[in-house]
């Protein structure tokens, strides 16, 4: 109690103090992602978003906690379930929504869509659509920091499905062999599409998957943003210290199906409800903040209305944008113009 009084209003969590403004920031960021994803789901239903669309409702504490623990200069990459991560990273939400809608002002000019969000200005390297593909790429970012000795850490995120790819273990081996500054984060939402962890993994304690590479593992509650943020800080500090990579297993849950086309019939209603109502990361933080006297339920209701309004405005602004110019089809294939040889149209000259 005395610590709180000394440092102003906030919440003390095992020696780490979260002040009032940080708590609001964490809360607002999670709630924004939740409402943004709901809006994306709605737009998908209206057929305004096409293709594959993987929402992260329920996993917001992981997105927000790890972003808050990392430095802006740290590198980050993830799989195709990327909206929450890029939003938490601070990318303009209108550019993210415009990308979902395939518009000119999308974060990758309408060329990537839901699965391929990139923002180099935020050191966010995708948005990768092949399960596990981002892990060797993350290895390369970590290698670059070792090569340049630039003090950056790479946070390489995968799911409990991705961790079964062989490329992950090739990467674990080299990361540990060369002591590269990488935090591998497994978002264990317990289902790889429709396959439960138990049906896919001989060792379900995923944080142990680095043991044969001498990579230490941490298992963290990914539904409690303060707990996750705090432990993620330790993981990042470990990687930054030069001691090599570390593996973090974030226990979490996705409320929606794997993608928009997945009704998720492989889970029971009771199981989903248990996570949704019993462990929801947003409700949990709200409860903690109310208990600490930092906000009232009415404050959160008002905040929710404000955020919903902001998301609607973002969707509207994104929808008002034109589709990409037809000439964009030919750009960004090669860096420099290719004389005579490209684009090869097959036209008879």
């Amino acid at each position, binding site marked *: 109690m005395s610590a709180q009084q000394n440092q102003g209003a906030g919440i003390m969590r095992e020696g780490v103090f979260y002040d009032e403004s940080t708590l609001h920031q964490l809360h607002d960021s999670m709630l924004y992602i939740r409402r943004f994803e709901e809006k994306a789901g709605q737009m998908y239903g209206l057929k305004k978003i096409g293709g594959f669309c993987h929402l992260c409702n329920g996993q917001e504490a992981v997105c927000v906690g790890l972003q808050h623990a990392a430095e802006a200069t740290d*590198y980050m990459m993830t799989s195709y379930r990327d909206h929450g991560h890029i939003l938490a990273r601070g990318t303009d939400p209108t550019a993210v929504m415009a990308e979902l809608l395939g518009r000119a002002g*999308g*974060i*990758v*000019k*309408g*060329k*990537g869509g839901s699965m*391929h969000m*990139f*923002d*180099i200005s935020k050191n966010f*390297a*995708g*948005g*990768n*659509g*092949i399960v596990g*593909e981002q*892990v*060797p*790429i*993350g*290895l*390369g*970012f*970590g*290698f*670059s920091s070792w*090569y*340049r000795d630039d003090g950056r850490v790479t946070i390489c995120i995968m799911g409990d499905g991705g961790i079964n790819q*062989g*490329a992950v273990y*090739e*990467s674990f*081996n*080299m990361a540990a*062999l060369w002591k590269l500054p990488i935090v591998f984060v497994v978002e264990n939402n317990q289902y790889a599409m429709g396959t439960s962890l138990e049906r896919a993994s001989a060792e379900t304690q995923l944080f142990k998957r680095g043991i044969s590479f001498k990579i230490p593992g941490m298992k963290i509650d990914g539904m409690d943003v303060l707990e996750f943020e705090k432990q993620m800080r330790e993981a990042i500090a470990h990687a930054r210290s030069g001691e090599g990579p570390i593996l973090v297993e974030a226990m979490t849950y996705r409320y929606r199906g794997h993608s928009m086309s997945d009704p998720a019939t492989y889970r029971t209603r009771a199981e989903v409800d248990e996570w949704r109502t019993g462990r929801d990361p947003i409700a949990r933080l709200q409860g903690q903040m109310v208990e600490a006297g930092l906000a009232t339920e009415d404050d959160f209701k008002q905040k929710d209305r404000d955020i919903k309004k902001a998301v609607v405005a973002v969707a509207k602004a994104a929808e008002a944008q034109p589709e990409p110019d037809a000439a964009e089809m030919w*750009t*960004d*294939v*090669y*860096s*420099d113009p*290719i*004389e*005579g*040889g*490209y684009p*090869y149209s*097959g036209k*008879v*000259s």
Partner: protein
Amino acid sequence: MKITYREALNQAMCEEMARDDRVFLMGEEVAEYNGAYKVSQGMLEKFGSKRVIDTPITELGFAGLGVGAAMTGLRPIIEFMTWNFAILALDQIVNAAAKMQYMSGGQYKVPMVFRGAGGSAARVGAQHSQSLENWLANVPGLKVVMPSCPADAKGLLKASIRDNDPVVFIENEINYGDVGTVPEGEYIIPLGKADIKRAGKDVTIVAHSRMTGFALAAAVELAKQGIDAEIIDPRTIRPLDETTILRSVAKTNRVVTVEEGWRFAGIGAEISARIMEKGFDDLDGPVIRVTGKEVPMAYAANLEAMTLPSVADIVEAARVACGKA
């Protein structure tokens, strides 16, 4: 200066690494062993273990490492001991390296070289003898380069290392010991430029990599028979210098393509189609393709020789093209 194909590659890498500290070499046995084919001989000593790096046997992993490092602005040279093993790394080459710039709306570039020996070696069987250039040249975002002689090996590799996009650089194991004259010092051959290896007026023979030497040998035999062959080596498969090929066809009106790889959707098929589309009126007859036989490579010496194109096959094809068979 007369040096080997392998030394030319070594010079190219050493010069580029001395010039640009963002360039590094990584692969299996490249450092302490001095390269499985000795292409990286002496490089560890010259540049140290931070820039010449031995990897575990883990092609997909270190290919992806190269992609990530290139995305941060480094310029990796990723060596595959042979391209046969790069099949394990195709996800990173095709789905990541080739598409990253496009998928990221131009934000992330991938300036890197994937290099190693391709084509058939000698008596190593099916899994170690194949040509993948048509697979890779099919992918927008990649460039595919295949030198046929020491001078081209040096000039093209230097250009590839300086290129801002991912380059697939396919060497030939049997050519590593070939000796040729290589200009000293800064010698760069722009990508996408074919080379007329022999001028002639009767038939155009388009051949790349090891088959260029076969075509040149065939031209000697054809000359004895009164057929003057023009030999064109595209050197870069993608982008393909169709201008040089079409210009030659306009002169000779007859074409033979030669490649080690399989016939179906091969490089000859692409060249034939382009000539049909853009040079149809210049043709006096159909383009004739000399290719590897469509079977996996056998071990037995006689079967191996029969599977690959021979000088005699090229001579015969040129005679057919010229209506003299």
